[in-house]
């Protein structure tokens, strides 16, 4: 590794950290990623795995919707290896849902999301297990993905370009030089018990819902509201496309096919501690009812798994659903007078590459590097290449 290159330390190997490592390595920087657990073992791994078309946000949060459709198209091109792409449906079940339809159609058009209204009969031919009482149906370009493999594909591509990944290495403290600038992190290697200092020219805090936690001990502040939601997986693949409820974002508004499963999501409430969030019975029961409303055959399925994921929503003081799903990059020089420290949080799995691009732009701008982003076109490496020994396959 060329020591003259600026060295960026990324804390967190979720979608954002892995995509950012790839972008920065692509721009020629030396990158090290530390992650306290396995790759994608926080919020990222536990996503329901929807490759958003943006339809969910096209009425209330058009900025997120536009980000989603742009990135949806890019991800299908660069990382199809871990995506089931069969399109999706938005379905109206009540008069209230029907009243939302014109706003939905208008919003989708405004955001550049290709939708088409089809008849109930057509919808039931496409998805025989759909509730036959649906009142209106739109097709959208949704898909679903495997969360761990999506993160690994970005990480594998970053590694191929020289980035180093250290799973099971936890940041204990952000380190400062004598001028008060950030210059690395104190790292706890949880595989050996050893603690050591990692120096870097710039540190990126990509820990999502844990962003505030990692900055403890510094005067930097980020306003992130960890907002968990429950997801329940059933043991049969009843649909080939994600089925969305044609309504504003709400609980139990989507059921997604994945491998041999159907996964319903989700709820939304706020917590302070995100290290362990219990799954509540009442929420599982609620998800089951909502799933049956969309796809009645769920009633004949067995539950295969139930899990919880904490969205990192940017902002505080409003209720979770009203916070935008877009992302935010904090330059702590500007917000807190701390040099060489950047935080990226918020956003969604679907927009991880775009989040990485914006963050890498900021990092490069701070370092006076003008290399443009080059992650939009080229397919990523196979996710399995993350496990290649240095120097390639034997």
């Amino acid at each position: 590794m060329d020591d003259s290159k600026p060295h960026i330390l990324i804390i967190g190997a979720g979608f954002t950290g892995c995509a950012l490592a790839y972008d920065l390595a692509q721009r020629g920087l030396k990158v090290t990623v530390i992650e306290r657990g396995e790759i994608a073992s926080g919020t990222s791994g536990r996503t329901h795995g929807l490759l958003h078309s943006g339809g969910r946000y096209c009425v209330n949060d058009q900025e997120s919707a536009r980000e989603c459709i742009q990135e949806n198209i890019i991800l299908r091109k660069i990382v199809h290896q871990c995506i089931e792409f069969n399109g999706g449906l938005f379905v109206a079940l009540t008069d209230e849902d029907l009243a939302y339809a014109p706003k939905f159609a208008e919003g989708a058009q405004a955001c550049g999301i290709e939708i088409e209204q089809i008849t109930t009969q057509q919808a039931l031919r496409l998805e025989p297990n759909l509730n036959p009482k649906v009142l209106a149906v739109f097709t959208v370009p949704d898909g679903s993905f495997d969360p761990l493999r999506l993160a690994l594909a970005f990480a594998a591509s970053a590694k191929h370009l020289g980035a180093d990944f250290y799973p099971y290495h936890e940041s204990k403290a952000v380190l400062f030089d004598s001028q008060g600038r950030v210059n690395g992190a104190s790292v706890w290697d949880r595989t050996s018990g050893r603690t050591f200092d990692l120096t870097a020219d710039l540190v990126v805090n990509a820990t999502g819902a844990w962003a505030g936690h990692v900055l403890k001990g510094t005067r930097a502040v980020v306003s992130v509201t960890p907002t968990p939601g429950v997801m329940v997986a059933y043991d049969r693949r009843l649909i080939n496309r994600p089925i969305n409820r044609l309504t504003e974002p709400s609980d139990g508004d989507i059921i997604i096919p994945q491998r041999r499963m159907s996964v319903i999501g989700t709820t939304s409430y706020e917590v302070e501690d995100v290290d362990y969030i219990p799954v509540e019975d009442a929420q599982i029961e609620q998800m089951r009812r909502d799933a049956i409303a969309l796809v009645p055959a769920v009633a004949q399925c067995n539950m295969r798994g139930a899990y919880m994921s904490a969205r990192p929503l940017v902002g505080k003081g409003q209720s979770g659903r009203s916070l935008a799903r877009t992302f935010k990059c904090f330059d702590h020089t500007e917000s807190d007078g701390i040099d060489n420290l950047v935080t990226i949080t918020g956003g969604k799995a679907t927009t991880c590459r775009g989040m990485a691009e914006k963050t890498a732009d900021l990092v490069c701008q701070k370092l006076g590097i003008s290399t443009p982003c080059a992650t939009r076109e080229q397919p990523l490496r196979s996710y399995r290449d993350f496990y290649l020994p240095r120097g390639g396959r034997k």
Partner: protein
Amino acid sequence: MSQERWNITMIISKKKGEEPAHFQSFKLEVDPEEYVLDAVERVWAFHDRSLTFRHACHHSTCGACGMRVNGVEKLTCITLVRSVTHNGGEMKVEPLRNFPVVSDLVVDMSDFYNRMEEASAAQVVPVRKSALPYEHDLFPDDGMDHERLTDCIECGCCVSACPIALTTPAYLGPAVLAAAQQTHSLSGKPCIFDLVDTADGVWRCHSGFECTAVCPSNVDPAWRIMDMRRRVIGHRIKHLFGAK
């Protein structure tokens, strides 16, 4: 989930750095309807922050959380506590066998993943060709060409349970051979025979079917290995009569 509460003893394999592995016990109150992985995660969250374990999706799509629970390979995110112990009982959690242990419950999957890549293991497959030949009408079919993520989630449970993998790391192992069978059935790639028609390939298997017994994801590796043998023999016979 339920209102019922059990008190159990988790006996977890710990290993840091070069030290030999040892067991450490934790008393835990559990809901018998929660998953083993939830209990392991709680040990980390509230009792031992040094505990390392692999996990990501928590709903059996990623395959990261394969472990041995009371001596049997389990995908811990979908294994109910009730199915492996009882109130007042023990739950022994160990890393998968036949893989190098990195730390505690974390194993090094590098060779395994690289072999899967060598077998051109499918990642996304056509829905219509995604089930085993003896399974019928599993998925809705509207006549269109749908795709889905394949069944094998690369959890390594089959390799851990395999008595032959225990005898030699050279054996390709059930997941890789099953992947080769799927690759051949989907694409007809003849080069796959070079990989599997070897002493450490399909012929090393002793038909114990342990892999199929523990597979959490409907791959049926043992059936696929037997089918791969049939394909290899068919190929050899054709070759004998001059086919290339």
